[in-house]
């Protein structure tokens, strides 16, 4: 071994040690600090699928196409470059190539060479995006770190190319050990191209140029290795695992066992799971989540990225302290709510899942936000004043409204609907679950009436629960009051079991999501349909027929996706097909389907005043107006309430209508 080998060996040992030591520390934190366990199922097929799709194919990144392509190239470049680097150090230390000439070596060197060029272009493009175009979501965050990393990557590629070009120009003489000396030119096309551009260096300089390039390359790699786990580029290692470990139940917060647990929700970093720690480690600060957050978009200070990043910083700082001072956990772990995470930000969230949908590394922001709300509500009894009223009403009246629960089924009076609270022995095939909003709110009662009309026309034998129906608990759950939600769910589950209810239709996506996905944990298996799916089937099965819109009609429809129907349950097509069944006068709004903008009502916000910034619903109405929609079709009573209010308060009454899917169909029944 010569001196160079020894120095490089020493350097690489230090770098690898530093790298793994940091990994060890953060893994230790993730294992030792959390008191809660994630909900995990083996689910191997899904895991392999998402690993391939979201890691190797970089699937989620393409939601932002330019950044997506850039990142994907960088990612693939990194993988091949990794192979090259192993070879580089191997050959330096042991003086013979790890990948001896052959097909494998050919492939590696070919791709490395191509990618070296691409990655340099990429680095320049990334720098232009960040500092030239000043893309909003990158602003204000760790500019130094981003620059430093780009320089490291750029230098790594640059020095490689320098060595390769020197070799190709036949200048390297005895130093050819780190390159594929003598390889055919087509194997290193970029270098070959460069030889035409770059003049041959005078031979007296070659020595200095080569060794500078060599050492910069080697040191760059070592610094990179040490730096990665200490920066946001930790995601290089954490994110693939995070994707692999993703729970698949991102929308549902963890259940709470009130008999056993004593710490509710998430107050400090002990109250997250190891999977949450992977979330924190994986965040790259890319800002896609915040960029798509309706609250942030309308001038509120809530930023899902900051929430994740702030907890990550807390984990890093308090983890370090805890490793030193393990005797006094209560001294080390301070609450994250208040500082750095503002209470008001937690309450601004509409639980719309736009952040989760957008996050390329599959971080679950929403359950964390709900868990912090739970901490406030369940441990300290803190919630916005309107939510306290909401809780009181649900507790006393089984709905968010302070209205006599015995009148819940009154909307159906004179409609000849089977009400199981009045007629317990009636025969029926399907239960129509009406939900609180459509039961009590006069505007939304029209939805209930339209659904009734359609079901009757189709000859569906259905019944309602009337005064036996109670709030599903969803508003309480999303507002952090799991205790109350638990109580409501148990009462309803009791009713389902007693009445042996199996098949349910509902026109409320919030009820739909609860009944379909969340009641399972309480031991009822229900077959639940949202009315959009159900009506769509009635149309395609020709159980009902719908009058087509006359071709001269100036009516223009658009559809507003409900978060709890779309992102929560991936129902995007059924509502559009229903509209398509009678008209082609349809146009999508600016943000639609999985990127749809929330109406502002989820997460219990339907019962809170929105005073910070502007209103989410107003922003949505503006989008509908921009395409001159005359009818905005909704599929959710919450959306209906918000958009109808926005339509009026922004003085668009004369040119725009908000209609539920059931209403547009009920009107067009033949």
């Amino acid at each position, binding site marked *: 071994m010569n001196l160079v080998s020894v120095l490089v060996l020493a350097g690489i040992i230090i770098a690898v040690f530093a790298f793994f030591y940091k990994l060890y520390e953060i893994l230790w934190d993730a294992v030792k600090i959390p008191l809660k366990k994630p909900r995990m199922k083996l689910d191997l097929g899904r895991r392999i699928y998402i690993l391939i799709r979201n890691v190797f194919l970089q699937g989620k990144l393409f939601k932002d196409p330019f950044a997506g392509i850039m990142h994907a190239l960088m990612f693939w470049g990194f993988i091949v470059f990794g192979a090259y680097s192993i070879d580089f150090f191997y050959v330096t230390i042991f003086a013979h190539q790890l990948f001896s000439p052959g097909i494998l070596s050919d492939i590696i060197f070919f791709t490395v060479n191509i990618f070296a060029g691409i990655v340099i272009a990429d680095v320049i493009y990334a720098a232009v995006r960040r500092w030239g175009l000043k893309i909003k979501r990158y602003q204000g965050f760790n500019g130094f770190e981003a620059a430093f990393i780009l320089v490291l990557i750029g230098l790594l590629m640059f020095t490689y190319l320098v060595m390769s070009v020197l070799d190709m120009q036949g200048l390297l003489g005895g130093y050819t050990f780190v390159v594929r000396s003598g390889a055919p030119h087509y194997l290193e096309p970029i270098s070959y191209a460069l030889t035409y551009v770059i003049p041959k260096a005078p031979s007296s300089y070659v020595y200095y140029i080569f060794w500078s390039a060599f050492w910069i390359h080697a040191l760059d790699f070592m610094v990179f290795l040490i730096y990665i786990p200490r920066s946001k580029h930790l995601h290089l290692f954490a994110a693939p695992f995070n994707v692999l470990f993703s729970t698949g139940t991102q929308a549902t917060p963890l259940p709470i066992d009130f008999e056993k647990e004593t710490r509710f929700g998430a107050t400090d970093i002990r109250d997250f799971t190891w999977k949450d720690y992977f979330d924190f480690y994986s965040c790259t600060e890319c800002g896609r989540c915040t960029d798509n957050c309706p609250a942030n978009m309308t001038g509120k200070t809530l930023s899902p990225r900051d929430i994740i990043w702030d907890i990550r910083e807390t984990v890093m700082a308090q983890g370090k302290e805890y490793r030193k001072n393990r005797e006094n956990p209560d001294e080390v772990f301070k609450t994250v709510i208040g500082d750095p995470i503002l209470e008001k930000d937690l309450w601004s969230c509409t639980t719309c899942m736009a952040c989760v949908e957008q996050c390329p590394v599959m971080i679950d922001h929403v359950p964390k936000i709900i868990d912090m709300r739970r901490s406030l509500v369940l441990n300290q009894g803190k919630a916005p004043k*309107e939510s306290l*009223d909401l809780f009181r009403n649900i507790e006393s009246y089984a709905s968010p409204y302070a209205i006599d629960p015995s009148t819940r089924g009154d909307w159906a009076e004179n409609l000849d609907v089977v009400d199981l609270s009045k007629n317990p022995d009636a025969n029926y095939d399907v239960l129509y679950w009406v939900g609180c909003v459509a039961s009590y*709110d*006069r505007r939304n009662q029209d939805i209930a009436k339209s659904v009734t009309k359609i079901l009757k026309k189709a000859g569906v034998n259905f019944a309602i629960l009337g005064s036996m129906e109670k709030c599903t608990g969803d508003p309480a759950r999303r507002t952090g009051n799991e205790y109350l939600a638990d109580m409501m769910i148990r009462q309803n589950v009791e009713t389902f079991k007693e009445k042996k209810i199996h098949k349910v239709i509902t026109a409320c996506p919030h009820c739909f999501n609860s009944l379909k996905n969340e009641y399972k944990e309480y031991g009822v298996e229900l077959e639940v349909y949202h009315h959009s799916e159900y009506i769509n089937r009635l149309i395609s099965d020709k159980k009902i027929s719908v009058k087509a819109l006359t071709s001269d009609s100036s009516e223009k429809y658009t559809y507003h996706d409900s978060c709890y129907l779309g992102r929560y349950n991936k129902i995007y097509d059924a509502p559009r097909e229903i509209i398509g069944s009678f008209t082609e006068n349809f146009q999508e709004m600016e943000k639609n389907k999985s990127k749809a903008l929330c109406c502002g009502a989820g997460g219990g916000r339907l*019962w809170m*005043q929105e*005073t910070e910034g502007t209103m989410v619903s107003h922003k949505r109405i503006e989008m509908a107006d921009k395409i001159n929609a005359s009818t905005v079709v909704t599929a959710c009573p919450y959306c209906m309430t918000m958009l109808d*209010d926005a339509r*009026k308060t922004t003085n668009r009454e004369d040119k725009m209508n908000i209609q539920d899917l059931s209403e547009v169909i009920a009107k067009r029944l033949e």
Partner: protein
Amino acid sequence: MKFLVFSENAGSLSQMITYLREKGEVIGVGVEKSSSEAANFGALRMYSIKGDILSDSIAKLLEELFKKEGIDNIFLSSSILGRETAGILSVSMGAGIVPEINEISFEGSKARTKRFYLGGKTVLEEESQAKIFTVSPGISDAIKSDKNSEVISLSAPVSKIKILSRQPKKSEGSNIENAKIIVCIGRGLGKKEGIESVKPLVEAVHGEIAGSRPVCLDYQWLGEDRQIGLSGKKVRPAIYVGIGVSGQIQHIAGMRGSKIVIAINKDKTAPIFEESDYGLVGDLYQIIPKIVEKLS
């Protein structure tokens, strides 16, 4: 029969005297202001209490007057002070009491009274030998009489309670939760200047103005402390008048407890009519002046 009538409020005092003067002889008791303002409503005599008024000392004073004047029944206005005093008095005199009456008639010494119950949902009609009554405001119009009452000044016995300071109520800011009549405006007003057309009505009924959310939050025609509804104030006035308010559930949540609801809206199908006792279908700008005119 001989009645002793107390109120620290001139309006209530003169209403009670007017109502009772047909039924017997009335001796009035008030504070300096209320006694002088209510001195020509037909009371035989009017006692005027100087200085501070606190429930324990007023109770003592009324008990003394009761004995001195040979009174059959005592009536107190149902104010914060009146209710407290009545409670103390009924115990110290060992006398029966009926609260919050809005009607009374006598058969011999037996009183037949009416009062609201169950938060105003029902009316209780009762017969009793009670000697003390608290009277809910508005038992009658106050109508002057040609007899002037002799005003006699006196001071109340010393109270156990020490008054440290007085703070006037903040005059700005809304007081809609305590208002008897609320005139609530909605988006139907069309423009901020529309408030000028509603103000005469607010003044004519001595009410408070309030608004729906668009009016208070979105357009800021009124302060946010005047918003009625789910995310605003919850009010239970005697009369709520909704003008150009459509009556969405979030609004109704704040005014469902109102005793009487009047709605003015040009849309016959507006949901607020389902929540109203009296509805007027038409343009508010034509209707309001007519109401104001008829009121004065």
